[in-house]
């Protein structure tokens, strides 16, 4: 009888309500797994399987198997009378039995899988003692009988004349304790029986079966089904309130208090940032505690990498010709696989060590994609202008007043950025790190991180592009580079890009809005003739007409030179040129709408609508706003330019 056994054993005092609940959940899961097992047959599960299954079920809102692995290990290790913890080939394994008792404790370190004899007579009830009248009638009939019938057949006794009668409850394992419900969600991870002990769980877990359903099953030892057999030290204390104390309120900041009697998940959800900030400060003060990104460990337990190891890593990155992940390095340089026991320590130690070798290694990854590069690796992207010039061109993005509103929306729970390509972006294969990009792309993981590699998957082409997001620094703005191939092969200026979140923080889908195949004359730069020309081109992407550089709107630009570098850097020159190409002549002035100026201003330099508007409204005598029409402006050229 599971419950009776459990009640006889003490509860571990250190178990928290959350640990008890978790251990209870896992016990039910494993009992269901071993529902057709003998009572004493060990039911085995690896810690990894349990964590992955619970992550799949989003246990307590947690989806990270690593986090759950630690919680599970702690909870089950705190119940040694219910769960036997062992290590097999470097993997942590937990065992229990259908009765909710750890296997080793059942028969004094000797596991006896054979229990039919016990089960045959378990639950047997004694034949009812005859009443005095019955005794008397038997006596009159001449029967000889003992005055007292034997007591109820003991579970371990040999069969006797008073052995099981039809009134004995049949062994519960004849009764399907739970009908396998095929409609139920499948267990996330069928355990892979790596070793052939008696506890192969494949048939049980491999079935699509519910986890919580075992609550309904009857443990074998009981004649009547017990709905919730509680494990030994896992009393259902979830309902029990913690010991009442005078005050469980703590102050986190002036005016901010947390109630520690709330569940930890709730405290984390409401006050997590306060606790994180406080704890990080504390952890940083401990010399033996080190971190890489959000992971922490003890320095004296990290793996040591020699100068020679680091040299091999650098040579590997150069040989690969581009940034690589620390997983690639572990696999290819150090021949370590994720399933090896010390892998997580080795990988953390590698990341930590590389982060301290700033002269030779640069981190360009995210929390879920640790990417490293080194000096000498070819830069990503080919642009008309140097990186420093592009950074300066995008400097205005760091002023919130000069950026356009975000173009990001949410679709099916994922962020989607829809953006119309300008001539500048098309020519250089870049995108601005503006409000929209800052919403959708990952922030730097490390404080001094300069860039991050973005994996942009183009499903329309079945190609993955590695682009680089260069974060703003100093007086330079940020931008994304490396898309010139995607743009030039498939798009034209004015095309509409759609970028949506992928499976990792640096993984995205990049697509373009498709349209009817059409031919149109659009503006190009003729490198040979060093002139702007309108050329017919056939394309199948949808374009925004108001952003397209077509001859009907901008005929005056045909045959013109580009602005030289010094002219390009002067706002007034760029704007004046834009008016001359896009504006209507009115006496000694030009007149144009912002929407007509925007595409042509974005030939030589990037401008947002807000930036243009700000410049045109504040550039003194040359430019002035039409007070009667919003976003309409005049430009009066200086005498020398007329």
């Amino acid at each position, binding site marked *: 009888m599971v419950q009776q056994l459990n009640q006889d054993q003490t509860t571990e005092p250190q178990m928290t309500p959350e640990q008890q609940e978790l251990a209870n959940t896992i016990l039910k899961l494993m009992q269901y797994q071993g529902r057709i097992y003998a009572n004493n047959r060990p039911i085995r599960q690896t810690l990894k399987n349990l964590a992955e299954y619970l992550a799949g079920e989003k246990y307590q809102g947690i989806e990270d198997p690593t*986090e759950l692995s630690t919680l599970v290990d702690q909870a089950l290790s705190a119940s040694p009378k219910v769960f036997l913890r062992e290590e097999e080939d470097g993997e942590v394994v937990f065992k229990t039995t259908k009765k909710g008792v750890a296997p080793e404790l059942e028969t004094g370190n000797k596991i006896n899988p054979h229990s039919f004899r016990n089960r045959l007579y378990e639950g047997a009830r004694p034949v009812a003692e005859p009443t005095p009248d019955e005794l008397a009638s038997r006596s009159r009939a001449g029967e000889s009988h003992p005055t007292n019938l034997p007591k109820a057949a003991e579970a371990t006794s040999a069969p006797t004349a008073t052995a099981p009668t039809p009134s004995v409850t049949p062994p519960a394992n004849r009764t399907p304790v739970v009908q396998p419900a095929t409609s139920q969600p499948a267990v996330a991870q069928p355990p892979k029986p790596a070793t052939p002990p008696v506890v192969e769980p494949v048939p049980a877990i491999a079935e699509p079966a519910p986890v919580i359903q075992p609550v309904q099953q009857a443990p074998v030892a009981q004649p009547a089904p017990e709905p919730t057999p509680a494990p030994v030290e896992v009393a259902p204390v979830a309902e029990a309130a913690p010991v009442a104390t005078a*005050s469980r309120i703590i102050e*986190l900041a002036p005016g901010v208090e947390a109630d520690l009697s709330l569940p930890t998940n709730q405290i984390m959800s409401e006050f997590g940032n306060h606790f994180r900030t406080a*704890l990080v400060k504390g952890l940083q003060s401990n010399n033996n505690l080190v971190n890489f990104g959000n992971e922490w460990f003890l320095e004296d*337990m990290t793996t040591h990498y020699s100068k020679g190891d680091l040299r091999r890593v650098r040579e590997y990155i150069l040989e690969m010709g581009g940034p690589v992940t620390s997983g690639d390095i572990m696999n290819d340089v150090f021949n370590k696989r994720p399933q090896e026991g010390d892998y997580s320590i080795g990988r953390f130690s590698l990341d930590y060590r590389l982060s301290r070798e700033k002269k030779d290694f640069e981190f360009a990854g995210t929390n879920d994609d640790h990417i490293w590069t080194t000096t000498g690796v070819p830069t990503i992207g080919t642009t008309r202008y140097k990186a420093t010039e592009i950074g300066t061109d995008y400097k205005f993005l760091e002023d919130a007043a000069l950026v356009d509103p975000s173009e990001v929306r949410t679709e099916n729970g994922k962020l989607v950025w829809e953006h119309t390509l300008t001539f500048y972006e098309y020519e250089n294969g870049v995108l601005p790190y503006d409000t929209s990009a800052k919403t959708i792309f990952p922030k730097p993981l490390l404080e001094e991180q300069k860039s991050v590699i973005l994996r942009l998957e183009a499903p329309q082409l079945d190609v993955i592009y590695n682009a680089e997001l260069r974060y703003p620094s100093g007086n330079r703005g940020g931008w994304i580079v490396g898309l010139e191939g995607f743009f030039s092969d498939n798009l034209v200026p004015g095309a509409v890009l759609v970028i949506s979140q992928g499976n990792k923080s640096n993984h995205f889908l990049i697509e373009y809005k498709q349209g009817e195949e059409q031919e149109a004359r659009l503006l190009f730069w003729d490198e040979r003739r060093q002139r702007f020309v309108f050329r017919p081109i056939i394309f199948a992407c949808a374009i925004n007409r108001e952003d397209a550089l077509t001859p009907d709107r901008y005929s005056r630009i045909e045959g013109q030179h580009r602005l030289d570098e010094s002219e390009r850097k002067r706002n007034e020159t760029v704007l004046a040129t834009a008016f001359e190409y896009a504006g209507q002549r009115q006496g000694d002035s030009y007149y144009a709408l912002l929407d007509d100026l925007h595409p042509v201003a974005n030939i030589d330099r990037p401008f947002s609508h807000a930036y243009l508007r700000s410049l045109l409204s504040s550039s003194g005598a040359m430019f002035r706003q039409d007070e009667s029409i919003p976003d309409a402006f005049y430009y009066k050229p200086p005498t020398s330019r007329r």
Partner: protein
Amino acid sequence: MEENTTLTPTSEQLEKLADWLRRSGRPQALDMLVRRYIEFLKEATTTK
């Protein structure tokens, strides 16, 4: 996201966290450490 906080872990709590980290035998995410820290705080207020 950093928050202004007056909360300061004690050296004893930090040592307990370090012990827990050592016993876990593997690097841990910050949030796991924060959860353990909250558990220590709960235990401390329970046993007062």
